């Protein structure tokens, strides 16, 4: 895909990066077992595998963030053994780790240039640094105040800043561990443009993602890992998608789950009585007032670009932000929604997008994380017995295929995708009547992805009402009865029934004049 640079005879013979026999165990449990990966000059190389396959561990073992047990890494034929991120950077390997690692308390410009600020007589040249930051972010179509603290910006912007920093520092190799997990389609396009540009200059790029469309759109070759072992290395163009999935999962993805069959014809009319109704709900300067009625069994999708107000709407619905106008009625009765605690009491659940900061408690075990919300809802006076906790944890670990299936492991040690599953389990365990999911399938592998969508559908037939925010329109279309399109923090369109299809949603997102004035 990327234009290959004309490699000299020498570089054509020696790969840019050759990893041989890389192994790593955590407390006797092998996370990587003799993995070989070869990255060529000017190549975009996908590293794929299920959640917990060992992709992130592989990356950290190369850059020296975790020590490797065995194996060699050669860079242009010369062995390298960085012992820290710092040494890897010096060797020319820049990485964006899966947990976006930047500093919210520093400004955007400081984050971009930390450790390499332009200086004169030892003093940081702030003006010059900001000028360069603006120029750097322009490549990503990002026009923000680089003097503001990074923490003021959304996850996606923070992620883009992290990528921009790595891109700017990458001398020979750029490694991106699920960089697109919080980006929308437009931003992914921008990222791809930057990646192609770098590959054109002869850099090698190692790219981890769970979006197979992206794999086929941008990568030249693919390496697949499964359970810490190398499954194989292929040319992207010569590897059919079904074959790729089989390599990743080690089995066929069942037909029913692999594609999105038309949802069961929705006869669940928004009946007036037994429903959750938000009327004129909104908060000045946050989200414009909106109406939202949810009958049980209904799925409402929230679509829109990044920053269109989807997450903000979810936070209002769950009482994280308190609305300053409008009212909420449940089964015809007006109720107060001033805090998440109120929301939980009414049987609402909310699975946020920022799982690191708002979701998981890294030190607690998987079991404790799963029962957290259920326990909170029951109150401190009605503790769940250990046996109940074990039963619940076990049920969801099996249902969502959380790996390793050990309820007593601190959740921080799980792979990113498995943490996401545990978080979903936390809210499912409360058996809510309204569940709000923000990007529920981000960072989740193809197998589990299908599994989660199936689960969502099943829950709805059991009477759960669902609000789902997702940037994957096909996914929304596959289960939503109604899609609300948002722009500039207001609802601009509501699509129902036949109108729920990808084209219509795209049109509504792009429309200049809001088709719906109310």
């Amino acid at each position, binding site marked *: 895909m990327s234009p290959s640079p004309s490699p000299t005879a020498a570089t054509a013979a020696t790969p840019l990066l050759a990893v041989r026999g890389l192994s790593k165990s955590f407390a006797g449990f092998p996370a990587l077992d003799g993995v070989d990966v070869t990255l060529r000059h000017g190549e975009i190389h996908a590293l794929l595998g299920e959640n917990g396959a060992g992709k992130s561990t592989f990356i950290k073992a190369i850059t020296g963030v975790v020590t490797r047990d065995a194996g060699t890494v050669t860079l242009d034929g010369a062995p390298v053994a960085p012992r820290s991120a710092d040494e890897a950077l010096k060797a020319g390997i820049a990485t964006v780790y899966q947990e976006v690692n930047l*500093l919210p308390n520093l400004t955007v410009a400081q984050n971009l240039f*930390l450790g390499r600020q332009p200086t004169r007589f030892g003093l940081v040249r702030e003006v010059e640094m900001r000028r360069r930051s603006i120029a750097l972010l322009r490549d990503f179509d990002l026009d923000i105040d680089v003097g503001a603290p990074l923490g003021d910006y*959304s996850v996606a912007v923070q992620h883009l800043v992290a990528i921009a920093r790595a891109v700017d520092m990458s001398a020979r190799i750029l490694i991106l561990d699920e960089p697109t997990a919080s980006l929308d389609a437009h931003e992914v396009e921008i990222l791809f443009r930057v990646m192609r540009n770098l590959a054109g200059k002869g850099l090698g790029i190692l790219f981890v993602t769970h979006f197979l469309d992206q794999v086929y759109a941008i990568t030249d070759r693919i390496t697949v890992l499964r359970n810490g072992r190398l499954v194989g290395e292929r040319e992207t163009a010569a590897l059919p998608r079904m074959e790729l999935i089989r390599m990743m999962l080690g089995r066929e993805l069942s037909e029913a789950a692999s594609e999105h069959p038309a949802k069961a014809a929705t006869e669940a009319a928004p009946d007036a009585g037994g429903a959750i109704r938000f009327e004129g709900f909104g908060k000045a300067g946050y989200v414009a007032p909106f109406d939202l009625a949810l009958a049980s069994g209904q799925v409402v999708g929230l679509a829109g670009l990044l*920053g*269109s107000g989807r997450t903000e709407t979810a936070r209002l619905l769950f009482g994280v932000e308190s609305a300053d106008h409008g009212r909420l009625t449940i089964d015809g009765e007006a109720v107060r929604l001033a805090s998440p605690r109120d929301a939980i009491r009414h049987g609402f659940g909310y699975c946020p997008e920022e799982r690191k900061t708002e979701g998981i408690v890294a030190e607690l075990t998987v079991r404790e994380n799963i029962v957290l919300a259920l326990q909170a809802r029951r109150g401190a006076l009605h503790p769940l017995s250990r046996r109940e906790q074990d039963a619940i944890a076990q049920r969801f670990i099996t249902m969502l295929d959380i790996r390793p299936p050990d309820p007593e492991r601190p959740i921080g040690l799980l792979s990113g995708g498995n943490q996401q599953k545990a978080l979903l389990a936390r809210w499912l365990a409360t058996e809510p009547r309204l569940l709000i999911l923000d990007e529920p399938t981000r960072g989740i592998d193809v197998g589990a992805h299908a599994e989660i969508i199936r689960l969502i559908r099943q829950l709805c037939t059991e009477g759960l009402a669902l609000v789902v925010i997702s940037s994957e329109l096909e996914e929304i279309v596959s289960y939503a009865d109604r899609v609300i399109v948002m722009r500039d923090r207001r609802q601009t369109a509501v699509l129902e029934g036949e109108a729920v299809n990808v084209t219509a949603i795209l049109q509504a997102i792009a429309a200049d004049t809001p088709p719906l004035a109310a």
Partner: protein
Amino acid sequence: MTRYLPVIVTAAVFALGYAICALQFPAFLSTRVIANLLTDNAFLGILAVGMTFVIISGGIDLSVGSVVGFTTVFLALAIETWGIPPLAAFMLVLFVATLFGATMGALIQGFDMPPFIVTLAGMFLARGASFLLSTESIPVTAPLYSAVSDFAFRLPGGGRLSVVGMVMLAVFFAGGIALHLTRFGANVYALGGSRVSTGLMGITVGRHTAAIYALSSFLAGLSGIVFSLYTSSGYSLSAVGVELDTIAAVVIGGTLLTGGHGFMIGTFLGVLMQGLIQTYINFDGTLSSWWTKIVTGVLLFAFIAFQQATLALARRSVRGATAKGATP
């Protein structure tokens, strides 16, 4: 804007306090009182500069008071008993102190130990070492000492800006530049934000941790020299508990104990605030000097409560702004 709020509040409270003092005792407006404020708090100020670095980096240094005590005893013995020239003795003690701090920093990083524990051990160690050297109060009679205390920069209005006062101002100035305008300073903030992230961004966390504690101990050594010059003596019980006054000054100056946020100017104001209370009590004449502690305690409490409130506010506004950077 919320970033500057704590410092602005500190400045406002200080100005208000000063105005009240000046209304009651017009002499507060004289350069003499101002110069004395600087001289009397010089050793505390120098310590507070080091502490600001440590706290912003997410740590704490409980050993500084003991290092001051050790330094005064060491200097008194070196100059009076061992016959080492004062300037050489200064160099020597600064070297020892810096090494001491670097070791604490290395232990904190190397064994992943909490700074609280390591510097608490350091505190006992340094205090114990000074008792080993001598338990007496030893006067220092070197000519350099009297020369230094005689020398002063005369201000209009009769104030005398002493050498130790000037040293403190210079340390604050240099500390402010290092913290706010250098790469090292940015890394200190970064460490306070997240040690893991800082490491993954390619900053050598270990080396910086060692450097930060070395700096704090170096400044504690310098503060000890200033204390020794100021009192012209060495005593193993000097500056007991001063580490807590120092931490109080830094926190009153608006620096968050959790790290990652703070300003050097805030610490300067925090030090002056404590000095102001002490001076007021001296002027009043009837109040016990322990009132300084009580007022400091109240202020500290008020500031921490205030910081929590602004933090909560800031968090809310961050949420409101989550989508501010989107460019569809």
